[in-house]
């Protein structure tokens, strides 16, 4: 196996593990950006993650149903394009607090000067 192939395989394996659980963060970020219907959430997640994250609409609906059940996300009906009404999802107060707490404890670490320097430092 060439070192390029090995690098590619290792990177893929790491990314597969890394991405597990990340969909929630991307969904919440898309809703922090403003209320959206499912297709808009999908587009946001894919575009803003540079297509490193992909999600099927079914999977998004399933997750949104869970979040709605838990009270972190809710929706209101709005007009769709010609078709039936769309569900516009948004973060509830609990959802916003949850996202803020998560970011503070897990994401802001990467904005620490030392860590930022390490990330940008060439080995």
């Amino acid at each position, binding site marked *: 196996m060439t070192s390029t192939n090995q690098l590619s395989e290792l990177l893929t394996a790491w990314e597969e593990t890394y991405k597990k659980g990340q969909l929630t963060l991307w969904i919440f970020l898309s809703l922090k950006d403003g209320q959206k219907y499912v297709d808009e959430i999908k587009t946001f997640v894919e575009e803003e993650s540079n297509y490193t994250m992909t999600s099927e609409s079914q999977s998004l609906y399933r997750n949104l149903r869970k979040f709605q*059940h838990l009270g972190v996300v809710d929706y209101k009906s709005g007009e769709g394009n010609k078709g039936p009404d769309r569900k516009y999802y948004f973060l509830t107060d609990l959802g916003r607090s949850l996202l803020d707490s998560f970011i503070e404890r897990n994401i802001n670490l990467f904005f620490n000067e030392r860590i930022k320097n390490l990330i940008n430092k060439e080995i």
Partner: protein
Amino acid sequence: MKTITKNLVLFSLVLIILTILLRYALSFSLQNQHFNSVWLIAVLYGLIVFVFGWIFGKRDNESLPLYDIGFRFHVATYFICNVIAELWYLLELQSDYEKIKVVHLTVLFWGIGLFIHFIFYLNTRKNVIKGLKKSEIFE
């Protein structure tokens, strides 16, 4: 926690219809002394209920994965089967070969089974938030 879901209601409606059909078929067969067909009817009923339980249970989990180790569907099945059986006797629709004692004993022993299921169900509550398994919420 949301306990009565659309799929549970649909399953219950199908079960009510199937159970009424079962009781009718059983009583009719026994009254006409078709004793051999009783086994066939009972097995067929069991299989059909199992298939519908599987289908609606699967759909229910796909819609909202409430982690209850099948307890909600078990409770619904217990009440529907036993209430219809008791009513069948109350309305005197049974055959001459059916005894109410069997229905009461079914309620009792199945009830013990349901209670044991309830204990296991309670044990799962420490791993859930609003009925959803903690490890599956943010997967």
